[in-house]
C-alpha cells in the first residue's frame, strides 16, 4: 500500500470540490460527500465503475446538473478561489471552465466547422481571434479539417469525440471537464485522443479533470487519480502509485485474481477523515 502522498496543492488549486452531496429529483442521493482538487496545469483522473457517480461529479462542477433535475445539497465547489455553485453553465464557460459531455453530443445537423464555432459562442474577443483559434484546433485535429464540411451526425465516433473536444477548445478554456473520452472507441483512437489531451495540457496549459472507466489509459496520462465507488471517493493518490496498487490492479486494471467484489471488502484501504464527514 502506497502512502498517501501530498495532494498537489502548493498554491490554491484551480478547482476544489469540497464534500459535495448530490441529490436527483429531490430524493435520489447519488454523491455522498465527494472531495477532490485539480491543480493549475494538472491532469487529474476520476475513476470508477458504471454508476459510481463520475458524470454526476463533473456535472455538479459544470452546473449542467440542473438540467437533469439534480442538485448540490451539501459542500462547495471553488474555481480559481471563487464559489461557483450558483453560477450558470454559460457563466462558467466564459470564465474558462467547460465540460465535454459523455457520449460526445455533437450537433448532428451542423457541420463539423459549425460545431466548432458554436464553442466560441460566449467569446467577445472578435472574429479574428476566433478564426485563429479555429486554425489551432485544426492543427491539433487535422482530421477535423478534412471533414469540416461534413454533417457531424454522419462522422465517425472518433471524429465526433475530436469534434466535441475541439468545440470545447474554441471557448478558450483554462480547464476542461472531460467525461469518458474513450467510450466506444478503438484502443488506437483512445491513445490518439489522450495524446492530444497530453499535448493540450503541456502546450496550451489547459488543465483537465477526466472521468474514465478505462483506468489503465487514464492513469498513464493523469498525474493524480481519485477512485469513486457508490458516490464516495474510496482511494486517491498519484497516478503511478495507483497503478502499482494491488487493489487497483485487481478491480480496475483486471490484473489480480478474483474474490473480493469491491473496495468495501478490502480492509486496508484508507479513507481520509473528511470523506467520512
Amino acid at each position: 500500500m502506497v502512502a498517501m502522498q501530498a495532494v498537489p496543492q502548493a498554491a490554491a488549486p484551480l478547482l476544489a470540490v469540497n464534500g459535495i452531496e448530490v441529490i436527483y429529483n429531490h430524493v435520489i442521493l447519488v454523491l455522498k460527500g465527494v472531495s477532490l482538487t485539480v491543480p493549475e496545469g494538472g491532469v487529474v483522473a476520476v475513476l470508477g465503475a458504471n454508476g459510481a457517480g463520475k458524470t454526476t461529479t463533473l456535472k455538479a462542477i459544470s452546473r449542467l446538473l440542473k438540467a437533469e433535475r439534480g442538485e448540490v445539497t451539501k459542500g462547495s465547489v471553488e474555481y480559481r478561489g471563487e464559489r461557483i455553485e450558483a453560477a450558470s453553465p454559460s457563466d462558467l464557460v466564459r470564465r474558462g471552465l467547460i465540460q465535454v459531455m459523455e457520449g460526445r453530443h455533437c450537433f448532428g445537423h451542423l457541420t463539423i466547422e459549425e460545431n466548432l464555432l458554436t464553442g466560441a459562442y460566449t467569446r467577445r474577443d472578435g472574429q479574428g481571434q476566433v478564426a485563429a483559434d479555429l486554425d489551432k484546433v485544426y492543427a491539433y485535429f487535422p482530421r477535423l479539417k478534412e471533414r469540416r464540411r461534413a454533417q457531424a451526425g454522419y462522422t465517425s465516433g472518433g471524429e465526433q469525440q475530436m469534434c466535441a473536444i475541439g468545440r470545447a477548445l474554441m471557448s478558450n478554456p483554462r480547464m476542461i471537464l472531460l467525461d469518458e473520452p474513450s467510450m466506444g472507441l478503438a484502443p488506437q483512437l483512445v491513445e490518439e485522443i489522450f495524446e492530444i489531451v497530453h499535448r493540450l495540457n503541456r502546450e496550451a496549459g489547459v488543465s483537465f479533470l477526466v472521468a474514465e472507466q478505462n483506468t489503465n489509459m487514464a492513469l498513464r496520462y493523469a498525474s493524480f487519480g481519485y477512485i469513486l465507488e457508490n458516490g464516495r471517493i474510496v482511494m486517491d493518490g498519484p497516478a503511478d502509485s495507483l497503478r502499482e496498487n494491488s487493489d487497483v490492479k485487481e478491480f480496475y486494471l483486471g490484473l489480480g485474481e478474483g474474490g473480493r467484489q469491491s473496495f468495501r471488502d478490502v480492509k486496508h484501504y484508507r479513507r481520509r477523515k473528511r470523506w467520512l464527514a
Partner: protein
Amino acid sequence: MPEFLGPFLEVLIGGLLAGILYSLVALGFVLIFKASGVFNFAQGAMVLFAALALVRSIEVLQSWGVNAGLAIVIGFLFSGALMVALAFAVERMVLRPLVNQEGIILFMATIGITFFIDGFGQQIFGSDAYQLDIGIPKESIFLLEGVFEGGILVNELDLWAGATAGLLVLGLALFFQKTRIGRALRAVADDHQAAQSVGIPLNHIWVIVWAVAGIVALVAGTIWGSKLGVQFSIAQIALKALPVLILGGFTSVPGAIIGGLIIGAGEKLAEVYIGLPYFDGGIENWFAYMLALVFLLIRPQGLFGERIIERI
C-alpha cells in the same frame, strides 16, 4: 394552349398565394418547436394580437394628426416591439418556471397563453373588425394575356404578399445559416444540453425564437389583415397551420413553406374541381384537415420531418 389550362392556373396561383400565409404561421410554430420543443398553440393568437396592435396603433396615430406614412412606420415599430416584449414575458413568466417539465405541460401553458392574448388583445385593442390599409395596391390584374385568352386573374395584394413572405423566409434562412445566433439556435434545436455545455444560455435563445415567431406573426397578420380586415377570425384561420405542420413535419422550415403551398393550392383546386361540381362547394373548409389526416396515416413524420440521424 389547351383551354382548361388558363382557369386551372388561375386557381392554382390563387391557392399558392393564399398558402403562403399558412406557411408563415406554420413557420412560427416550427421555429418555436425546434428551439424549445414547445408546441406553441398560441401562434394563431399571436397573429391576431400583432395585427390588432398594428391596425389600432395606426388608427390612434392618425387620429392624433400624424400623417399616414409615418403612422404606418411607427405602427410597425410599436407592434414589432410589442411582440418582442411578449417574447420576454413568455420566457420569464412561463418557460423559465416550467423548464424541464413534460412537453404536454408546456403545451397546456401555451393554450393558456392563447386565451390570455386573445382576450387581453381584444380588451385593449377592441374586438371589432378593422380595415387595415398600409398602402398595398389591391387591384385585380391580368397576367399572361398574350398566352391565355383573357389572361390569368390575380390580385396585386396577393403578389405583394408572396414577395414579402418570400423575402422574410430568405432573410430567416440567412439568419439561421450565417449568423452566430442563428447557429446557436440550430445547435439548441439539435441538442439543448450540449448547447448549454458550450455556454449557450437557453433562456436567451427562447426569447429570440419567440421574438422571431412574433415578428413572423406580425407579417402574417399584416397581410391577412390587409386582405380580410383584422378580426377574430384571423386567429381561427391560423389554425390551418396545423394541417400544414402535419404535412410538412414539425421540425422542418422548408416543410412548413412547401406544406403551406400544398394546402393552399390543394384546397382551392379541390373546391373548384371537386367541391363545386359535386358538393355544392364548401369543401375548402375541411379539405385541408382531411388531406393532413390521410397524409398522417401514410407518412407520420411529415413530408420533410427532420431525418433522424442515427449512428453509433
